[in-house]
């Protein structure tokens, strides 16, 4: 070993240096997914929020972006839009915003399309190159419907975004099944020690380390890992309680006192760190390893029940883990051990006990995966790494059921479907921002309604000309939406709650109309931050995306996520 050459300098590459602060979040895997993406922005309206979104995607290094925007730069763009300069007046907005965004990261390819959105969307396969589509309001409903149909037919995520005055909204249309394995749960929530049903190797390890515990010298006694201490005292507790473990809060507290009283106080510090750790871990570690309802729902999902040769790997692994759970009434062991007071060798040995068990569980799941593949005649094999990651995160995997967002059509009622009941209830929650979402729907309906007084089909923006007149119209639209929702839910909201819902919504409408379709840079920048964050989650398939609508109130600085 002495004359072994030290490892060569494995310094980071230029790319790793540039992206260091984000690679620490989504890793090389996530970065690769970003680099393979091509994002289309259909930039209608003032167009600030769309560009602020793209800015936060160009910086971390998406592969490609394309801006569709047929607008020509006006004076009004120059104040509010940071990606334009005075000299661009009268030229295509798409071209110059694209160029200034490209400056932010030479690794990103940017493209622009200046033909009107109607023409662009009419071309065959116009949307084919894009992995994800962003569209900003206002846009004509038939075009939004067309984008929505494309999203659902091709499983291409679609985002629809509003930024109006002090308010904003975005909705995400994800595929019907959007599973996330790498959800990045907080480290505290992932600790799974299996103290209530330890396997033989763990029992044996704990027994070795707690042999003659009472007669150990202080130095040894203070270095017994707390996992072993808890197993040791659980053994004592079982003896006194007919073999049962502590059941409820009261018993757990009693058990905690048992552990606490056993700590030695004749040490220089007057206490023992490993006992302190054991005491602190009692309430959170002595719970049965019951999977969350979200995980159980995945097991019950039709895609998990009916595996065929077309099934994506997520469902094949989910099925195998569901089988594993049926057999063992436990999920595969994640295998990580939190840091704890212990001697180095003891700790490493403990880590190995958990890792070995975790590997055994993975092997069992993998074997079942292969069996299922064989059974359904699946040609491509699931990657072993994928099985491993799934097993480690099994308790925290998340399935999002994407659904189309509301496309408001002039004169047509909005359908709330299976969400009607709970949303009608939510209407009366104090501080709920559902009325703000309804105000946005009313805003869209007003915009979609052809203006009798003007020629052509140009959309009219509430408050763009006469705020006072438009306010009354949009309020009455919003009122109809609320009544329709309550009707569809088959419920009834009594006064004074009903009047309160109406007046809250009317205030949101008034503030929306006040803006007359104007974007405030701060609200668009903030919303661009939110949307870009969600795009990153969707592309990298990491962390948990919004399901499925988010509204932001810049007056109270509050947001709310609503499933509609």
């Amino acid at each position, binding site marked *: 070993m002495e004359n072994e050459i030290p490892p060569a300098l494995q310094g980071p590459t230029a790319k790793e240096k540039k992206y260091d602060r984000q690679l620490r979040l989504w890793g090389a895997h996530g970065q690769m997914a970003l680099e393979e993406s091509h994002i289309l922005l259909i930039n209608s309206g003032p167009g600030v929020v769309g560009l602020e979104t793209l800015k936060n995607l160009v910086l971390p290094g998406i592969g490609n972006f394309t801006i569709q925007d047929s607008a020509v730069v006006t004076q009004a763009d120059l104040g509010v839009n940071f990606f334009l300069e005075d000299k661009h007046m009268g030229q295509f907005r798409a071209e110059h915003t694209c160029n200034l965004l490209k400056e932010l990261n030479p690794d990103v390819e940017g493209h622009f399309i200046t033909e009107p959105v109607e023409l662009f969307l009419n071309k065959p396969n116009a949307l084919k190159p894009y992995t994800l589509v962003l569209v900003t309001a206002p846009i004509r409903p038939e075009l939004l419907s067309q984008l929505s149909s494309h999203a659902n037919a091709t499983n291409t995520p679609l985002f629809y975004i509003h930024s109006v005055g002090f308010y904003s909204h975005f909705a995400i249309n994800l595929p019907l099944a959007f599973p996330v394995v790498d959800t990045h749960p907080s480290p505290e929530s992932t600790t799974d020690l299996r103290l209530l049903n330890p396997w033989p190797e763990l029992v044996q390890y704990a027994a070795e380390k707690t042999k003659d515990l009472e007669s150990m010298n202080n130095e040894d006694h203070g270095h017994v890992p707390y996992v072993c201490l808890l197993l040791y005292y659980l053994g004592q507790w079982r003896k006194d309680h007919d073999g049962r473990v502590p059941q409820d809060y009261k018993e757990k507290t009693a058990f905690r006192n048992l552990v606490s009283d056993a700590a030695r106080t004749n040490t220089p510090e007057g206490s023992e760190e490993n006992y302190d750790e054991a005491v602190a871990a009692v309430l959170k570690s002595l719970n049965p390893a019951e999977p969350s309802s979200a995980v159980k729902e995945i097991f019950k999902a039709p895609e998990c029940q009916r595996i065929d040769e077309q099934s994506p790997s997520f469902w094949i692994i989910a099925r195998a883990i569901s089988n594993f759970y049926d057999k063992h009434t436990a999920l595969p062991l994640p295998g990580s051990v939190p840091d704890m007071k212990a001697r180095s060798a003891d700790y490493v040995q403990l880590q190995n006990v958990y890792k070995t068990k975790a590997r055994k569980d993975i092997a069992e799941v993998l074997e079942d995966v292969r069996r299922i593949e064989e059974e359904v005649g699946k040609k491509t094999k699931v990657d072993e790494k994928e099985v491993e990651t799934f097993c480690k995160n099994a308790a925290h995997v998340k399935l999002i059921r994407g659904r189309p967002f509301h496309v408001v059509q002039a004169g047509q009622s909005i359908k709330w479907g299976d969400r009607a009941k709970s949303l009608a209830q939510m209407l009366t929650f104090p501080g709920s921002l559902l009325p703000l979402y309804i105000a946005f729907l009313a805003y869209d309906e007003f915009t979609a309604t052809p203006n009798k007084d003007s020629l052509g089909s140009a959309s009219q923006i509430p408050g763009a000309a006469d705020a006072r007149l438009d306010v009354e119209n949009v309020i009455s639209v919003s009122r109809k939406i609320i009544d329709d929702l309550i009707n569809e839910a088959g419920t009834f909201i009594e006064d004074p709650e009903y009047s309160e819902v109406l007046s809250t919504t009317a*205030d949101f409408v008034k503030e929306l109309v006040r803006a007359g379709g104007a974007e405030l840079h701060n609200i668009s920048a903030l919303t661009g931050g939110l949307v870009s964050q969600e795009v990153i989650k969707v592309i990298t398939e990491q962390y948990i995306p919004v399901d499925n609508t988010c509204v932001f109130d810049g007056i109270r600085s509050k947001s709310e*996520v609503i499933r509609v």
Partner: protein
Amino acid sequence: MTLAMTGTVELEPSQPSNARAKWKHMDTVLDRSGPFTDPDFRPGETPKESLARAKVLVIGAGGLGCEMLKDLASSGFRDIHVIDMDTIDVSNLNRQFLFRQEDVGKFKAEVAAQRVEKRSGSGVKITPYCGKIQDKDEDYYKQFAMIICGLDSIEARRWINATLVGMVDEEDPDSLKPLIDGGTEGFKGQARVIFPTMTSCIECQLDMHAPRAAVPLCTLATIPRQPQHCIEWAHIIAWEEERKGDILDTDDPEHITWLYQKALKRAEQFNISGVTYSMTQGVVKNIIPAIASTNAIVAAACCNEAFKIITSCNPCLGLPGTDNYMMYTGDESVYTYTFEHQKKPDCPVCGNLSRPLQVNQDSTLGEFLDSLTERPEAQLKKPTIRTEAKSLYYQSPPSLEEQTRHNLSKKLSELVENGEEVAIQDPAFPTTFKYKLVFQK
């Protein structure tokens, strides 16, 4: 309520109407009242002039600062100052969007100011200062209508907070400078508004940002268990032993490589896996993950408040009795929690009462002073401490240090009474912290 604002500059207050065309979006909102605006709000020229006249200071030209400069310049602010002592590093480029590869090594404040000024066209002036906030005195801070912070250091926040609290003169409403503060870490962040002495200040909120507990030295020295323990050992112990005299430069790749290889070797000795170059860098430089999207959200939330405070076009956060703190989490869906953080009457900076500190009367003064670094409610690194009657320990000058050094080994119970008030000063802060030492037993 309305607040008097200072910070007027010699700019033509309202421009001819064709130049206002640029601000059509913003003006639509400023020319109308809304359902939530204060009845005293007068739409039209007043808010526009307030914006044009307001001189504001942005502290920090990093991830948040770059965003803030853009946000303010694109919201009608025309006289913006920015302070930052740092130079541009390649790892800034994934989010600090005003900087390019060729700017690496230049001062952040200077490059950021130039870029925003050029992009925003005539009428916007950005004045950079490349240096420390501590270089400037009260007269400097007094010229601004408000201070907006985009910092990554708690210490700098506490310094500016204590300075602004100290500046408040009840006779002079101009002396009260609203402080808007943003902070981010990965997918999380916060935006808060402080009206010094009137509402909860940074020091009142200090325990919301508890320092990470340090690993005990004996773990590093004798029983490492984690790859991080091996890296800390290389960083704190091995470097001191083997390269005494060399000043560790965490930006020098040779130094990091040396630590990495030392840590790797130690990890192999103890059968610990997981030491990587990237982790070594992360531990030694205390790197906090940072992304463009979170910075955009938090910076814009701060500047949105600045805009509302200056124009009064809608209610802002931070007035007494209203929400003043927005907490943001974005890793699991999108979540904000906006609430009122209460002012603490025993805040050592803005309160009138001394804050109780639970102490073990048997620990020595030295042990107690060491513990102040980590206690979430104190976080002081070089404390000087005295009671009303006597000096307990002085960090400087050397003569006083020598005179008071013998107290370090004395028990607290020998030096102070239970519940006695002590004054603690730290060279990092322009203030005296008042605490009351309460014996635990």
